[in-house]
Protein backbone atom coordinates (compact mmCIF):
# COMPACT_ATOMS: atom_id res chain seq x y z
CA UNK A 1 0.00 0.00 0.00
CA UNK A 2 2.81 2.42 0.91
CA UNK A 3 4.47 1.63 -2.42
CA UNK A 4 1.23 2.39 -4.29
CA UNK A 5 0.68 5.58 -2.29
CA UNK A 6 4.24 6.76 -2.97
CA UNK A 7 3.90 6.09 -6.69
CA UNK A 8 0.52 7.84 -6.93
CA UNK A 9 1.71 10.73 -4.77
CA UNK A 10 4.49 11.67 -7.18
CA UNK A 11 1.89 12.04 -9.94
CA UNK A 12 -0.34 14.37 -7.93
CA UNK A 13 1.58 17.28 -9.40
CA UNK A 14 2.54 15.90 -12.78
CA UNK A 15 4.35 18.98 -14.08
CA UNK A 16 6.55 19.29 -11.00
CA UNK A 17 7.44 15.60 -11.05
CA UNK A 18 8.14 15.61 -14.79
CA UNK A 19 10.45 18.61 -14.38
CA UNK A 20 12.46 16.97 -11.60
CA UNK A 21 12.56 13.59 -13.39
CA UNK A 22 13.72 15.34 -16.58
CA UNK A 23 16.39 17.28 -14.73
CA UNK A 24 17.68 14.03 -13.20
CA UNK A 25 17.69 12.42 -16.65
CA UNK A 26 19.59 15.39 -18.11
CA UNK A 27 22.01 15.41 -15.17
CA UNK A 28 22.66 11.70 -15.55
CA UNK A 29 23.05 12.08 -19.30
CA UNK A 30 25.61 14.85 -18.69
CA UNK A 31 27.42 12.75 -16.10
CA UNK A 32 27.48 9.65 -18.30
CA UNK A 33 28.66 11.73 -21.25
CA UNK A 34 31.56 13.04 -19.17
CA UNK A 35 32.39 9.50 -18.02
CA UNK A 36 32.16 8.24 -21.61
CA UNK A 37 34.35 11.09 -22.87
CA UNK A 38 36.92 10.46 -20.14
CA UNK A 39 36.89 6.74 -20.86
CA UNK A 40 37.38 7.42 -24.58
CA UNK A 41 40.17 9.91 -23.88
CA UNK A 42 41.93 7.56 -21.49
CA UNK A 43 41.63 4.66 -23.90
CA UNK A 44 42.96 6.85 -26.68
CA UNK A 45 45.80 8.03 -24.42
CA UNK A 46 46.71 4.46 -23.45
CA UNK A 47 46.67 3.40 -27.08
CA UNK A 48 48.79 6.39 -28.02
CA UNK A 49 51.27 5.33 -25.38
CA UNK A 50 51.23 1.70 -26.50
CA UNK A 51 50.84 2.00 -30.25
CA UNK A 52 52.80 5.18 -30.91
CA UNK A 53 55.25 5.59 -28.10
CA UNK A 54 56.47 2.77 -25.91
CA UNK A 55 54.68 -0.41 -27.00
CA UNK A 56 53.29 -2.90 -24.48
CA UNK A 57 56.69 -4.05 -23.22
CA UNK A 58 60.33 -3.06 -23.54
CA UNK A 59 63.54 -4.96 -22.88
CA UNK A 60 66.78 -3.20 -21.96
CA UNK A 61 70.17 -3.92 -20.51
CA UNK A 62 69.66 -3.64 -16.77
CA UNK A 63 72.05 -0.63 -16.59
CA UNK A 64 70.96 1.18 -19.73
CA UNK A 65 68.16 3.37 -18.40
CA UNK A 66 70.22 4.67 -15.47
CA UNK A 67 72.20 7.09 -17.70
CA UNK A 68 71.28 6.04 -21.22
CA UNK A 69 74.95 5.18 -21.65
CA UNK A 70 75.30 3.64 -25.16
CA UNK A 71 77.84 1.07 -23.95
CA UNK A 72 75.02 -0.86 -22.21
CA UNK A 73 73.77 -2.67 -25.26
CA UNK A 74 71.32 -5.55 -25.09
CA UNK A 75 73.61 -8.58 -24.85
CA UNK A 76 72.71 -11.26 -27.41
CA UNK A 77 70.05 -8.87 -28.63
CA UNK A 78 69.47 -10.70 -31.91
CA UNK A 79 68.89 -13.98 -30.07
CA UNK A 80 66.55 -12.32 -27.58
CA UNK A 81 64.62 -10.76 -30.44
CA UNK A 82 64.22 -14.13 -32.12
CA UNK A 83 62.83 -15.70 -28.94
CA UNK A 84 60.52 -12.73 -28.36
CA UNK A 85 59.10 -13.05 -31.85
CA UNK A 86 58.23 -16.69 -31.14
CA UNK A 87 56.08 -15.88 -28.11
CA UNK A 88 52.44 -16.40 -29.23
CA UNK A 89 51.10 -13.26 -27.56
CA UNK A 90 53.59 -11.05 -29.41
CA UNK A 91 52.28 -9.25 -32.47
CA UNK A 92 55.44 -7.38 -33.39
CA UNK A 93 58.86 -6.70 -31.91
CA UNK A 94 61.46 -4.20 -33.11
CA UNK A 95 64.94 -3.21 -32.01
CA UNK A 96 66.11 0.35 -31.41
CA UNK A 97 69.45 1.95 -30.70
CA UNK A 98 69.17 4.92 -28.42
CA UNK A 99 71.46 7.65 -27.23
CA UNK A 100 71.13 11.10 -25.75
CA UNK A 101 72.77 13.92 -27.65
CA UNK A 102 72.74 17.50 -28.80
CA UNK A 103 71.01 18.68 -31.94
CA UNK A 104 72.67 21.80 -33.33
CA UNK A 105 71.70 24.15 -36.14
CA UNK A 106 73.21 27.47 -37.11
CA UNK A 107 70.59 29.18 -34.96
CA UNK A 108 70.74 27.09 -31.81
CA UNK A 109 70.93 23.74 -30.13
CA UNK A 110 68.68 21.39 -28.13
CA UNK A 111 69.07 18.21 -26.14
CA UNK A 112 67.35 15.25 -27.84
CA UNK A 113 66.91 11.50 -27.62
CA UNK A 114 68.29 9.99 -30.80
CA UNK A 115 66.41 6.85 -31.79
CA UNK A 116 68.04 4.54 -34.30
CA UNK A 117 65.23 2.61 -35.97
CA UNK A 118 64.62 -0.03 -38.60
CA UNK A 119 62.23 2.07 -40.70
CA UNK A 120 60.01 -0.71 -42.05
CA UNK A 121 59.41 -2.21 -38.60
CA UNK A 122 59.08 1.13 -36.84
CA UNK A 123 56.43 2.31 -39.28
CA UNK A 124 54.33 -0.65 -38.20
CA UNK A 125 55.21 -0.49 -34.54
CA UNK A 126 54.89 3.20 -33.69
CA UNK A 127 52.91 4.36 -36.72
CA UNK A 128 55.77 6.79 -37.41
CA UNK A 129 55.01 6.97 -41.11
CA UNK A 130 51.41 8.01 -40.41
CA UNK A 131 52.58 10.86 -38.20
CA UNK A 132 54.58 12.51 -40.98
CA UNK A 133 53.04 15.89 -41.80
CA UNK A 134 55.82 17.18 -44.06
CA UNK A 135 58.33 15.29 -46.19
CA UNK A 136 58.65 11.58 -46.84
CA UNK A 137 59.71 8.43 -45.00
CA UNK A 138 63.38 7.49 -45.10
CA UNK A 139 64.67 6.93 -48.60
CA UNK A 140 66.91 3.84 -48.71
CA UNK A 141 68.93 5.50 -51.42
CA UNK A 142 69.82 8.46 -49.26
CA UNK A 143 72.12 8.60 -46.26
CA UNK A 144 71.98 10.50 -42.97
CA UNK A 145 68.33 11.36 -43.05
CA UNK A 146 66.53 12.38 -39.89
CA UNK A 147 62.91 12.79 -38.80
CA UNK A 148 62.15 15.52 -36.29
CA UNK A 149 58.98 16.43 -34.44
CA UNK A 150 57.04 19.53 -35.44
CA UNK A 151 57.52 21.17 -32.07
CA UNK A 152 61.29 20.71 -32.26
CA UNK A 153 61.29 21.85 -35.88
CA UNK A 154 59.55 25.07 -34.94
CA UNK A 155 61.82 25.63 -31.99
CA UNK A 156 64.97 25.04 -34.00
CA UNK A 157 63.52 26.68 -37.16
CA UNK A 158 64.04 23.45 -39.12
CA UNK A 159 62.48 22.86 -42.52
CA UNK A 160 62.55 19.93 -44.89
CA UNK A 161 66.08 19.26 -46.13
CA UNK A 162 67.49 21.53 -43.39
CA UNK A 163 70.91 20.46 -42.25
CA UNK A 164 71.65 19.79 -38.60
CA UNK A 165 74.40 18.25 -36.55
CA UNK A 166 73.92 15.55 -33.91
CA UNK A 167 76.62 15.28 -31.26
CA UNK A 168 76.83 12.48 -28.73
CA UNK A 169 79.32 10.13 -27.10
CA UNK A 170 80.04 6.70 -28.50
CA UNK A 171 80.53 3.53 -26.47
CA UNK A 172 84.13 4.48 -25.69
CA UNK A 173 83.11 7.90 -24.40
CA UNK A 174 84.46 9.79 -27.37
CA UNK A 175 82.43 12.70 -28.69
CA UNK A 176 80.97 11.97 -32.10
CA UNK A 177 79.30 14.43 -34.44
CA UNK A 178 77.52 13.83 -37.66
CA UNK A 179 75.45 15.94 -40.02
CA UNK A 180 71.92 14.92 -41.00
CA UNK A 181 69.27 16.33 -43.31
CA UNK A 182 65.62 16.60 -42.32
CA UNK A 183 63.70 14.05 -44.39
CA UNK A 184 60.39 14.47 -42.62
CA UNK A 185 58.65 16.41 -39.90
CA UNK A 186 56.21 14.35 -37.84
CA UNK A 187 53.50 15.26 -35.39
CA UNK A 188 52.16 12.83 -32.85
CA UNK A 189 49.46 13.34 -30.22
CA UNK A 190 52.15 13.96 -27.64
CA UNK A 191 53.86 17.30 -28.20
CA UNK A 192 56.43 16.95 -25.38
CA UNK A 193 57.67 13.71 -26.96
CA UNK A 194 57.79 15.33 -30.42
CA UNK A 195 60.07 17.99 -29.00
CA UNK A 196 62.44 15.45 -27.50
CA UNK A 197 62.67 12.54 -29.97
CA UNK A 198 64.43 12.39 -33.33
CA UNK A 199 64.65 9.29 -35.53
CA UNK A 200 67.55 8.15 -37.69
CA UNK A 201 68.38 4.91 -39.45
CA UNK A 202 69.66 2.32 -36.94
CA UNK A 203 72.57 1.26 -39.15
CA UNK A 204 73.90 4.81 -39.43
CA UNK A 205 73.56 5.41 -35.67
CA UNK A 206 75.18 2.08 -34.81
CA UNK A 207 78.23 2.95 -36.94
CA UNK A 208 78.59 6.27 -35.13
CA UNK A 209 78.08 4.63 -31.71
CA UNK A 210 80.45 1.82 -32.59
CA UNK A 211 78.01 -0.97 -31.70
CA UNK A 212 77.78 -2.62 -35.12
CA UNK A 213 74.70 -4.88 -35.19
CA UNK A 214 73.80 -4.46 -31.54
CA UNK A 215 71.03 -2.33 -30.11
CA UNK A 216 69.71 -1.02 -26.77
CA UNK A 217 66.03 -1.70 -26.80
CA UNK A 218 63.45 -4.21 -27.93
CA UNK A 219 59.97 -2.78 -28.20
CA UNK A 220 57.14 -5.32 -28.15
CA UNK A 221 53.54 -4.93 -29.30
CA UNK A 222 51.13 -7.61 -28.10
CA UNK A 223 48.10 -8.95 -29.90
CA UNK A 224 45.85 -8.16 -26.94
CA UNK A 225 46.17 -5.65 -24.11
CA UNK A 226 44.93 -8.31 -21.72
CA UNK A 227 48.00 -10.46 -22.40
CA UNK A 228 50.31 -7.89 -20.81
CA UNK A 229 50.84 -9.57 -17.43
CA UNK A 230 51.18 -13.03 -18.94
CA UNK A 231 53.67 -11.92 -21.61
CA UNK A 232 55.72 -9.96 -19.11
CA UNK A 233 55.92 -12.95 -16.79
CA UNK A 234 57.00 -15.18 -19.63
CA UNK A 235 59.72 -12.74 -20.68
CA UNK A 236 60.92 -12.38 -17.11
CA UNK A 237 61.24 -16.13 -16.83
CA UNK A 238 63.18 -16.37 -20.08
CA UNK A 239 65.38 -13.29 -19.66
CA UNK A 240 65.99 -12.88 -15.98
CA UNK A 241 69.12 -10.73 -16.40
CA UNK A 242 67.33 -8.07 -18.46
CA UNK A 243 65.16 -5.14 -17.52
CA UNK A 244 61.65 -5.95 -18.70
CA UNK A 245 59.05 -3.24 -18.21
CA UNK A 246 55.41 -2.80 -19.17
CA UNK A 247 54.00 0.49 -20.46
CA UNK A 248 52.67 1.17 -16.95
CA UNK A 249 56.22 1.22 -15.61
CA UNK A 250 57.71 3.05 -18.57
CA UNK A 251 54.96 5.67 -18.57
CA UNK A 252 53.75 5.75 -14.94
CA UNK A 253 52.24 9.18 -15.49
CA UNK A 254 49.76 7.65 -17.96
CA UNK A 255 48.76 4.93 -15.51
CA UNK A 256 48.40 7.56 -12.78
CA UNK A 257 46.39 9.78 -15.14
CA UNK A 258 43.97 6.93 -15.88
CA UNK A 259 43.48 6.19 -12.20
CA UNK A 260 43.11 9.88 -11.30
CA UNK A 261 40.61 10.51 -14.08
CA UNK A 262 38.64 7.49 -12.86
CA UNK A 263 38.30 9.17 -9.48
CA UNK A 264 37.60 12.58 -11.04
CA UNK A 265 34.77 11.13 -13.09
CA UNK A 266 33.05 9.93 -9.91
CA UNK A 267 33.62 13.36 -8.34
CA UNK A 268 32.01 15.04 -11.36
CA UNK A 269 29.07 12.63 -11.12
CA UNK A 270 28.78 13.39 -7.43
CA UNK A 271 28.81 17.17 -8.06
CA UNK A 272 26.06 16.84 -10.70
CA UNK A 273 23.90 14.73 -8.38
CA UNK A 274 24.63 17.08 -5.45
CA UNK A 275 23.29 20.00 -7.51
CA UNK A 276 20.24 17.94 -8.49
CA UNK A 277 19.68 17.00 -4.84
CA UNK A 278 18.64 20.60 -4.14
CA UNK A 279 15.92 20.29 -6.75
CA UNK A 280 14.74 17.01 -5.26
CA UNK A 281 14.75 18.40 -1.71
CA UNK A 282 12.78 21.44 -2.88
CA UNK A 283 10.21 19.29 -4.67
CA UNK A 284 9.79 16.98 -1.71
CA UNK A 285 9.54 19.88 0.74
CA UNK A 286 6.79 21.41 -1.39
CA UNK A 287 5.02 18.07 -1.47
CA UNK A 288 5.26 17.72 2.33
CA UNK A 289 4.06 21.30 2.93
CA UNK A 290 1.07 20.75 0.65
CA UNK A 291 0.22 17.52 2.46
CA UNK A 292 0.78 18.61 6.06
CA UNK A 293 -2.85 17.96 6.99
CA UNK A 294 -2.89 14.62 5.18
CA UNK A 295 0.29 13.43 6.89
CA UNK A 296 -1.07 14.60 10.25
CA UNK A 297 -4.26 12.65 9.56
CA UNK A 298 -2.27 9.49 8.71
CA UNK A 299 -0.28 9.79 11.96
CA UNK A 300 -3.56 10.37 13.83
CA UNK A 301 -4.99 7.20 12.32
CA UNK A 302 -1.97 5.23 13.50
CA UNK A 303 0.61 5.29 10.71
CA UNK A 304 3.91 5.14 12.54
CA UNK A 305 6.94 7.32 11.86
CA UNK A 306 8.88 4.54 10.14
CA UNK A 307 6.10 4.13 7.59
CA UNK A 308 5.86 7.90 7.09
CA UNK A 309 9.63 7.96 6.47
CA UNK A 310 9.32 5.00 4.12
CA UNK A 311 6.55 6.76 2.19
CA UNK A 312 8.67 9.90 1.70
CA UNK A 313 11.78 7.86 0.92
CA UNK A 314 9.92 5.84 -1.72
CA UNK A 315 8.52 9.01 -3.27
CA UNK A 316 12.05 10.43 -3.48
CA UNK A 317 13.40 7.16 -4.88
CA UNK A 318 10.65 7.10 -7.54
CA UNK A 319 11.37 10.69 -8.49
CA UNK A 320 15.10 10.06 -8.65
CA UNK A 321 15.05 6.66 -10.29
CA UNK A 322 12.28 7.79 -12.64
CA UNK A 323 14.82 9.86 -14.57
CA UNK A 324 17.62 7.33 -14.28
CA UNK A 325 16.73 4.87 -17.08
CA UNK A 326 15.99 7.78 -19.41
CA UNK A 327 19.28 9.52 -18.57
CA UNK A 328 21.24 6.29 -19.00
CA UNK A 329 19.44 5.52 -22.28
CA UNK A 330 20.11 8.98 -23.77
CA UNK A 331 23.71 8.73 -22.56
CA UNK A 332 24.06 5.30 -24.16
CA UNK A 333 22.56 6.41 -27.50
CA UNK A 334 24.72 9.55 -27.63
CA UNK A 335 27.83 7.66 -26.65
CA UNK A 336 27.14 4.93 -29.22
CA UNK A 337 26.78 7.58 -31.94
CA UNK A 338 30.03 9.35 -31.10
CA UNK A 339 31.79 6.04 -30.49
CA UNK A 340 31.05 5.20 -34.12
CA UNK A 341 31.62 8.60 -35.69
CA UNK A 342 34.14 10.10 -33.27
CA UNK A 343 34.00 13.42 -31.47
CA UNK A 344 36.24 15.99 -33.05
CA UNK A 345 37.77 18.23 -30.40
CA UNK A 346 40.03 20.10 -32.78
CA UNK A 347 38.09 23.22 -31.85
CA UNK A 348 39.93 23.06 -28.54
CA UNK A 349 43.22 23.22 -30.45
CA UNK A 350 45.34 20.29 -31.50
CA UNK A 351 48.40 21.73 -29.80
CA UNK A 352 46.61 22.12 -26.53
CA UNK A 353 45.30 18.54 -26.70
CA UNK A 354 48.64 17.10 -27.80
CA UNK A 355 50.47 18.95 -25.04
CA UNK A 356 48.54 16.66 -22.69
CA UNK A 357 49.19 13.64 -24.90
CA UNK A 358 45.67 13.43 -26.37
CA UNK A 359 44.51 13.32 -29.97
CA UNK A 360 41.76 15.61 -31.22
CA UNK A 361 39.48 12.80 -32.35
CA UNK A 362 37.98 11.09 -29.32
CA UNK A 363 35.77 8.01 -29.41
CA UNK A 364 33.71 8.14 -26.20
CA UNK A 365 32.91 4.76 -24.73
CA UNK A 366 29.83 3.93 -22.64
CA UNK A 367 31.12 3.48 -19.08
CA UNK A 368 29.44 0.12 -18.43
CA UNK A 369 31.88 -0.61 -15.62
CA UNK A 370 30.83 2.57 -13.81
CA UNK A 371 27.03 2.26 -14.12
CA UNK A 372 26.71 0.40 -10.82
CA UNK A 373 28.72 3.19 -9.16
CA UNK A 374 26.52 5.82 -10.83
CA UNK A 375 23.38 4.02 -9.59
CA UNK A 376 24.82 3.95 -6.09
CA UNK A 377 25.41 7.71 -6.28
CA UNK A 378 21.82 8.22 -7.53
CA UNK A 379 20.32 6.11 -4.73
CA UNK A 380 22.60 7.83 -2.21
CA UNK A 381 21.39 11.19 -3.53
CA UNK A 382 17.77 10.09 -3.13
CA UNK A 383 18.41 8.89 0.39
CA UNK A 384 20.15 12.11 1.41
CA UNK A 385 17.56 14.26 -0.39
CA UNK A 386 14.67 12.61 1.41
CA UNK A 387 16.16 13.10 4.87
CA UNK A 388 15.34 16.79 5.30
CA UNK A 389 11.72 16.56 4.05
CA UNK A 390 11.25 13.34 6.03
CA UNK A 391 12.51 14.91 9.24
CA UNK A 392 10.15 17.82 8.60
CA UNK A 393 7.25 15.39 8.17
CA UNK A 394 8.20 13.30 11.19
CA UNK A 395 8.23 16.40 13.38
CA UNK A 396 4.60 17.14 12.52
CA UNK A 397 2.27 16.86 15.50
CA UNK A 398 -1.03 15.36 14.30
CA UNK A 399 -3.17 17.74 16.32
CA UNK A 400 -1.39 20.77 14.85
CA UNK A 401 -1.25 19.34 11.33
CA UNK A 402 -5.00 18.61 11.41
CA UNK A 403 -5.76 22.22 12.33
CA UNK A 404 -4.21 23.48 9.06
Amino acid at each position, binding site marked *: *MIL*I*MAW*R*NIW*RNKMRSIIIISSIAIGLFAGISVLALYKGMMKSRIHNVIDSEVGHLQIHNINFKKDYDPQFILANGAEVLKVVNKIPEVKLAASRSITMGMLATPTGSAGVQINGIIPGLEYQLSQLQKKIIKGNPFDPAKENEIMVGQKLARKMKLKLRSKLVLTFTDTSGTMVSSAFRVAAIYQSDNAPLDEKNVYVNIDELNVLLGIQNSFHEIVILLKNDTDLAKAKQELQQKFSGYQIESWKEISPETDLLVKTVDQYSYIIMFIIMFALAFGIVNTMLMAILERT*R*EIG*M*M*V*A*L*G*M*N*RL*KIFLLIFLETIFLTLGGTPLGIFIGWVTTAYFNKHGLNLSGMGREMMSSFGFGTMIYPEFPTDKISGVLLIVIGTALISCLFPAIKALKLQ*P*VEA*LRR
Partner: protein
Amino acid sequence: MDTVIDAHDVSKIYNRETIPVYAVNNVHLHIEKGEFTALVGPSGSGKTTLLNLIGGLDKPDNGNVFINDLDITKLSANELIDFRLKNIGFVFQSFNLIPVLTAKENVEFIMLLQGVKKSIRDARVKQLFRQIEMDDKVDIRPAQLSGGQQQRVAVARALASKPKFVLADEPTANLDSKSASNLLDIMAKLNKEEHITFLFSTHDQRVIERARRVITLVDGRIVSDTAAVSTKHEKVDV
Protein backbone atom coordinates in the same frame (compact mmCIF):
# COMPACT_ATOMS: atom_id res chain seq x y z
CA MET B 1 -21.60 -2.11 31.41
CA ASP B 2 -17.90 -1.87 30.49
CA THR B 3 -16.24 1.50 30.81
CA VAL B 4 -14.46 2.50 27.63
CA ILE B 5 -13.47 6.12 28.28
CA ASP B 6 -12.73 7.49 31.71
CA ALA B 7 -11.41 11.06 31.90
CA HIS B 8 -10.29 12.29 35.36
CA ASP B 9 -10.03 15.97 36.11
CA VAL B 10 -8.67 16.69 32.65
CA SER B 11 -7.48 20.20 31.77
CA LYS B 12 -5.81 21.68 28.72
CA ILE B 13 -4.42 25.16 29.08
CA TYR B 14 -3.13 27.35 26.25
CA ASN B 15 -0.92 30.44 26.69
CA ARG B 16 0.27 29.29 30.10
CA GLU B 17 3.11 31.83 30.05
CA THR B 18 0.97 34.88 29.27
CA ILE B 19 -2.82 34.85 29.74
CA PRO B 20 -3.85 31.23 30.43
CA VAL B 21 -6.85 30.01 28.46
CA TYR B 22 -8.59 26.85 29.71
CA ALA B 23 -9.66 24.99 26.57
CA VAL B 24 -10.71 22.09 28.78
CA ASN B 25 -11.20 22.76 32.48
CA ASN B 26 -11.28 19.96 35.07
CA VAL B 27 -13.47 17.67 33.02
CA HIS B 28 -14.65 14.34 34.35
CA LEU B 29 -16.15 12.08 31.73
CA HIS B 30 -17.26 8.48 31.78
CA ILE B 31 -18.37 6.67 28.63
CA GLU B 32 -19.65 3.10 28.62
CA LYS B 33 -19.36 0.58 25.81
CA GLY B 34 -21.97 0.97 23.08
CA GLU B 35 -22.91 4.57 23.89
CA PHE B 36 -23.91 6.96 21.12
CA THR B 37 -22.93 10.25 22.69
CA ALA B 38 -22.87 13.81 21.39
CA LEU B 39 -20.50 16.39 22.81
CA VAL B 40 -22.17 19.72 22.18
CA GLY B 41 -21.45 23.33 22.84
CA PRO B 42 -20.73 26.59 21.09
CA SER B 43 -17.59 27.21 19.06
CA GLY B 44 -14.55 27.47 21.31
CA SER B 45 -16.21 25.49 24.08
CA GLY B 46 -13.45 22.85 23.97
CA LYS B 47 -15.24 20.00 22.16
CA THR B 48 -12.43 19.29 19.66
CA THR B 49 -9.73 19.71 22.31
CA LEU B 50 -11.49 17.21 24.58
CA LEU B 51 -11.84 14.75 21.69
CA ASN B 52 -8.13 15.21 20.90
CA LEU B 53 -7.23 14.48 24.51
CA ILE B 54 -9.43 11.37 24.60
CA GLY B 55 -8.06 10.26 21.24
CA GLY B 56 -4.45 10.61 22.35
CA LEU B 57 -3.76 13.24 19.71
CA ASP B 58 -2.88 15.75 22.41
CA LYS B 59 -1.76 15.51 26.03
CA PRO B 60 -3.60 17.17 28.92
CA ASP B 61 -1.81 19.61 31.21
CA ASN B 62 -3.63 18.10 34.17
CA GLY B 63 -5.52 14.91 34.78
CA ASN B 64 -5.58 11.48 33.22
CA VAL B 65 -7.42 9.74 30.42
CA PHE B 66 -8.09 6.04 30.85
CA ILE B 67 -9.11 3.94 27.90
CA ASN B 68 -10.13 0.48 29.06
CA ASP B 69 -8.24 1.19 32.29
CA LEU B 70 -5.02 2.15 30.47
CA ASP B 71 -3.78 5.67 31.28
CA ILE B 72 -2.94 6.97 27.80
CA THR B 73 -1.46 10.21 29.18
CA LYS B 74 1.54 8.14 30.30
CA LEU B 75 2.21 6.75 26.82
CA SER B 76 5.05 8.07 24.61
CA ALA B 77 4.31 9.57 21.19
CA ASN B 78 5.18 6.32 19.43
CA GLU B 79 3.14 4.22 21.86
CA LEU B 80 0.21 6.57 21.31
CA ILE B 81 0.39 6.07 17.54
CA ASP B 82 0.23 2.32 18.05
CA PHE B 83 -2.55 2.70 20.61
CA ARG B 84 -4.66 4.82 18.29
CA LEU B 85 -4.14 2.33 15.47
CA LYS B 86 -5.41 -0.56 17.54
CA ASN B 87 -8.13 1.09 19.62
CA ILE B 88 -9.61 4.24 18.14
CA GLY B 89 -11.48 5.07 14.96
CA PHE B 90 -11.43 8.70 13.82
CA VAL B 91 -13.88 10.64 11.68
CA PHE B 92 -12.73 14.17 10.98
CA GLN B 93 -14.76 17.22 10.11
CA SER B 94 -13.41 17.67 6.59
CA PHE B 95 -13.52 14.02 5.49
CA ASN B 96 -9.73 13.58 5.40
CA LEU B 97 -9.61 10.62 3.12
CA ILE B 98 -6.29 9.87 1.43
CA PRO B 99 -6.82 11.35 -2.04
CA VAL B 100 -4.53 8.96 -3.92
CA LEU B 101 -6.35 5.88 -2.62
CA THR B 102 -9.70 4.59 -3.82
CA ALA B 103 -12.66 4.36 -1.42
CA LYS B 104 -11.90 0.67 -0.86
CA GLU B 105 -8.19 1.32 -0.27
CA ASN B 106 -9.05 4.10 2.20
CA VAL B 107 -11.22 1.69 4.18
CA GLU B 108 -8.50 -0.97 4.00
CA PHE B 109 -5.80 1.49 5.10
CA ILE B 110 -6.04 0.93 8.88
CA MET B 111 -6.32 -2.83 8.48
CA LEU B 112 -3.22 -2.82 6.28
CA LEU B 113 -1.32 -0.85 8.92
CA GLN B 114 -2.47 -3.46 11.43
CA GLY B 115 -1.28 -6.28 9.17
CA VAL B 116 -4.72 -7.86 8.77
CA LYS B 117 -4.87 -10.74 6.24
CA LYS B 118 -6.20 -9.97 2.77
CA SER B 119 -9.12 -12.39 2.99
CA ILE B 120 -10.29 -10.81 6.24
CA ARG B 121 -9.78 -7.32 4.83
CA ASP B 122 -11.76 -8.09 1.72
CA ALA B 123 -14.66 -9.54 3.70
CA ARG B 124 -14.72 -6.59 6.09
CA VAL B 125 -14.54 -4.02 3.28
CA LYS B 126 -17.41 -5.75 1.48
CA GLN B 127 -19.50 -5.79 4.63
CA LEU B 128 -18.82 -2.12 5.43
CA PHE B 129 -19.55 -0.90 1.91
CA ARG B 130 -22.82 -2.76 2.06
CA GLN B 131 -23.60 -1.14 5.42
CA ILE B 132 -22.82 2.36 4.16
CA GLU B 133 -24.73 1.55 0.97
CA MET B 134 -21.85 2.33 -1.37
CA ASP B 135 -21.15 -1.07 -2.90
CA ASP B 136 -20.89 0.49 -6.35
CA LYS B 137 -18.31 3.13 -5.35
CA VAL B 138 -15.46 0.96 -4.05
CA ASP B 139 -12.97 1.79 -6.80
CA ILE B 140 -13.63 5.50 -6.95
CA ARG B 141 -11.18 8.05 -5.58
CA PRO B 142 -12.39 10.60 -2.97
CA ALA B 143 -12.30 13.54 -5.39
CA GLN B 144 -15.06 11.87 -7.42
CA LEU B 145 -17.30 11.31 -4.40
CA SER B 146 -19.76 13.78 -2.88
CA GLY B 147 -19.11 15.20 0.61
CA GLY B 148 -21.69 12.87 2.12
CA GLN B 149 -20.23 9.85 0.35
CA GLN B 150 -16.72 10.79 1.46
CA GLN B 151 -17.87 11.06 5.06
CA ARG B 152 -19.56 7.67 4.85
CA VAL B 153 -16.29 6.19 3.59
CA ALA B 154 -14.52 7.94 6.49
CA VAL B 155 -16.97 6.29 8.91
CA ALA B 156 -16.37 2.91 7.26
CA ARG B 157 -12.62 3.47 7.58
CA ALA B 158 -13.00 4.35 11.27
CA LEU B 159 -14.96 1.14 11.86
CA ALA B 160 -12.93 -1.14 9.60
CA SER B 161 -10.67 -2.55 12.30
CA LYS B 162 -13.49 -2.77 14.88
CA PRO B 163 -12.01 -0.18 17.26
CA LYS B 164 -12.99 0.15 20.90
CA PHE B 165 -14.65 3.46 20.12
CA VAL B 166 -15.03 6.04 17.37
CA LEU B 167 -14.32 9.72 17.83
CA ALA B 168 -16.04 11.93 15.28
CA ASP B 169 -15.27 15.63 15.22
CA GLU B 170 -18.27 17.48 13.77
CA PRO B 171 -18.90 14.74 11.20
CA THR B 172 -21.90 16.52 9.63
CA ALA B 173 -20.45 20.03 9.61
CA ASN B 174 -19.77 20.08 5.89
CA LEU B 175 -22.81 18.11 4.80
CA ASP B 176 -26.24 19.10 3.55
CA SER B 177 -29.19 18.02 5.65
CA LYS B 178 -30.00 14.94 3.56
CA SER B 179 -26.39 13.72 3.61
CA ALA B 180 -26.14 14.49 7.33
CA SER B 181 -29.31 12.55 8.09
CA ASN B 182 -28.10 9.67 5.94
CA LEU B 183 -24.74 9.62 7.71
CA LEU B 184 -26.42 9.66 11.12
CA ASP B 185 -28.62 6.75 10.11
CA ILE B 186 -25.54 4.80 9.11
CA MET B 187 -23.63 5.70 12.28
CA ALA B 188 -26.60 4.74 14.44
CA LYS B 189 -27.02 1.49 12.51
CA LEU B 190 -23.33 0.62 12.89
CA ASN B 191 -23.45 1.53 16.57
CA LYS B 192 -26.32 -0.83 16.99
CA GLU B 193 -25.05 -3.63 14.77
CA GLU B 194 -21.38 -3.54 15.72
CA HIS B 195 -21.80 -2.34 19.33
CA ILE B 196 -19.10 0.23 18.73
CA THR B 197 -19.05 3.25 21.03
CA PHE B 198 -19.48 6.60 19.28
CA LEU B 199 -18.45 9.94 20.77
CA PHE B 200 -18.94 12.86 18.44
CA SER B 201 -18.67 16.58 18.82
CA THR B 202 -21.32 18.65 17.15
CA HIS B 203 -23.44 21.75 17.31
CA ASP B 204 -25.80 20.43 14.69
CA GLN B 205 -29.29 20.14 16.18
CA ARG B 206 -30.15 17.18 13.91
CA VAL B 207 -27.22 15.25 15.35
CA ILE B 208 -28.07 16.22 18.91
CA GLU B 209 -31.62 14.94 18.43
CA ARG B 210 -30.31 11.54 17.30
CA ALA B 211 -27.83 11.11 20.16
CA ARG B 212 -28.80 8.90 23.06
CA ARG B 213 -26.67 10.96 25.42
CA VAL B 214 -25.78 14.62 25.08
CA ILE B 215 -22.94 16.25 27.00
CA THR B 216 -22.78 20.03 26.87
CA LEU B 217 -19.51 21.91 27.16
CA VAL B 218 -19.19 25.61 27.83
CA ASP B 219 -15.83 27.31 28.28
CA GLY B 220 -14.12 23.99 28.67
CA ARG B 221 -16.43 22.71 31.42
CA ILE B 222 -19.22 20.15 31.26
CA VAL B 223 -22.40 22.01 32.14
CA SER B 224 -24.91 19.27 31.45
CA ASP B 225 -25.10 15.56 30.72
CA THR B 226 -28.37 13.90 29.70
CA ALA B 227 -27.14 10.50 30.76
CA ALA B 228 -27.67 11.32 34.40
CA VAL B 229 -25.90 8.19 35.34
CA SER B 230 -23.79 8.20 38.40
CA THR B 231 -20.23 7.10 38.06
CA LYS B 232 -17.53 6.45 40.57
CA HIS B 233 -16.12 9.84 39.55
CA GLU B 234 -17.62 13.27 39.79
CA LYS B 235 -21.27 13.34 38.83
CA VAL B 236 -22.16 16.26 36.59
CA ASP B 237 -25.35 18.27 36.62
CA VAL B 238 -27.97 17.37 34.10
